[in-house]
């Protein structure tokens, strides 16, 4: 993978490879199995049989961050938990994505207090924010699909050469 990345400008080879890699990545996103608070229960409902998220390829919840692609921050993050969360994120290999599920992860939620981190984007780069308290499992799946759209836009073409061309 390191051989091809950033070598070429956008051309037919990179477009085809982009499509293949991105399709593989988006169809088999493996979330990290960690739930923090109430949103975790809706995440578990999304994994159960009614709102089945394994239709989208995410049925394997890896317990170890070394084997996971996606970190779904589901619940309130406190100042005590924030370093732990950052460490989990750092242990995940690239490419990795983060979904901030719920109000507490997006912006602190109803808890504007001394111990709550006002939004997980203060410690992690977030790709998709899902509002709700808690968001329905269908909302989580919608956010998941938005993440899949974002993944489809990834490219191995070099940014500099793309800008030079345009």
């Amino acid at each position, binding site marked *: 993978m390191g051989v091809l990345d950033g070598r070429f400008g956008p051309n037919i080879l990179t477009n085809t490879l982009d499509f293949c890699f991105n399709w593989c990545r988006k169809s088999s996103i493996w979330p990290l199995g960690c739930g923090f608070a*109430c949103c975790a229960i809706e995440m578990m409902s999304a994994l159960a049989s009614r709102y089945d998220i394994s239709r989208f390829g995410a049925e394997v919840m890896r317990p170890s961050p070394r084997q996971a692609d996606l970190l779904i921050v589901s619940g*309130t993050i406190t100042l005590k938990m924030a370093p732990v969360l950052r460490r989990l994120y750092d242990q995940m290999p690239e490419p990795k994505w983060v979904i901030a599920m719920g109000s507490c992860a997006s912006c602190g939620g109803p808890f504007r207090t001394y111990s709550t981190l006002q939004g997980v984007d203060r410690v992690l780069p977030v790709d998709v924010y899902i509002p709700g308290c808690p968001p329905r499992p269908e909302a989580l799946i919608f956010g998941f699909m938005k993440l899949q759209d974002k993944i489809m836009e990834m490219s191995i073409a070099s940014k500099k050469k793309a800008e030079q061309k345009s």
Partner: protein
Amino acid sequence: MKKIEPLVDTQEMVINMGPQHPSTHGVFRVILYLDGETIMDCKPVIGYLHRGVEKLGENLTYPQVQPITDRMDYLASPAYNLGYVGAVEKLMGIEVPPRAEYIRVMINELTRIASHLVWLGTHALDVGAMTIFFYCWREREMVLDLFERYCGARLTTNTFRIGGLQQDIPEGFIEEVQDFINLLPSRIKDYETILTSNRIWLNRLKNVGIISAEEAINLGLSGPNLRGSGVKWDLRKAEPYCGYEKFDFIIPTGENCDSYDRYVIRLEEMRQSIRIIQQTIDGLPGGDIRAKIPKVLKPPVGEIYHRVEAPKGELGFYIYSDGSTKPYRFRVRAPSFVNLQSFATMIKGHLVADVIAVIGTLDFVLGEVDR
């Protein structure tokens, strides 16, 4: 038994079961001191979900505090709502109309069923029976549908209001509840068929997490955990609230004080909840759903401690009012916080895999442990 002399000198090993772990049911950390696989001692570390709910309660008015109480034990939100509105009603001396009481009991018992279904699903999943997880969630979705029918939200319901209910039950709700409780006994029988006499289940749960009755009372255990040790104490019978004295149900207790007894007790509690719900449907009176309360709530100066039987144990709300619109002190006595204290006593001398079984049998929720 003859004492076996160790051939090799061993060292104590320290293992961290960190805040992120698939079986800890949230952000719970426990540091285990092991000799081989046997646990010599453990040190639980909590506080990873401390959101400052008690301080937040001091800065909000009485009706505004209610949505915060949902998010503590997020598996049984209506039970917490009931505890809180009951506390404020006790403080102000408000009497709730009988129709509101019956509907509150109905929703409360549905909550108990939902909470015990989550307990069974996650406990079985951790011990290794994955099928039960999907079965329980299938039934739980039906309960969440009922909640959504009634108050608009699946999980954090913010239902009931100080003085009664926010709205009457919709048309067709009673029939749906009746269909659900007609269906549930056969499903509980399914779970029992898979688990109760299963050799693996028995080996994993029998004689694991034993705590005697005196120790349990000393450590403040409550709910099914205490009843598993043989103490016949249920707040719905001992100090009835919300009209529970009108309903007929039994309190299951255990004999062997181990995890298997607690499993049997919780299944039986689900059956008793079905019995209570049937009685509320049969005897539902007509009339008002909300008592007359002033527009701006200003309770008299004083303090009360109101307790209810939440699915996890004795839930207490201690409110100190100074006569203004906001509580001066809002204290939540969370059952899981107190139950978790007995964790260290329960796992001494057991193996590492038993830690998972004990976490499941204690049935704690980090939202209310840390508040």
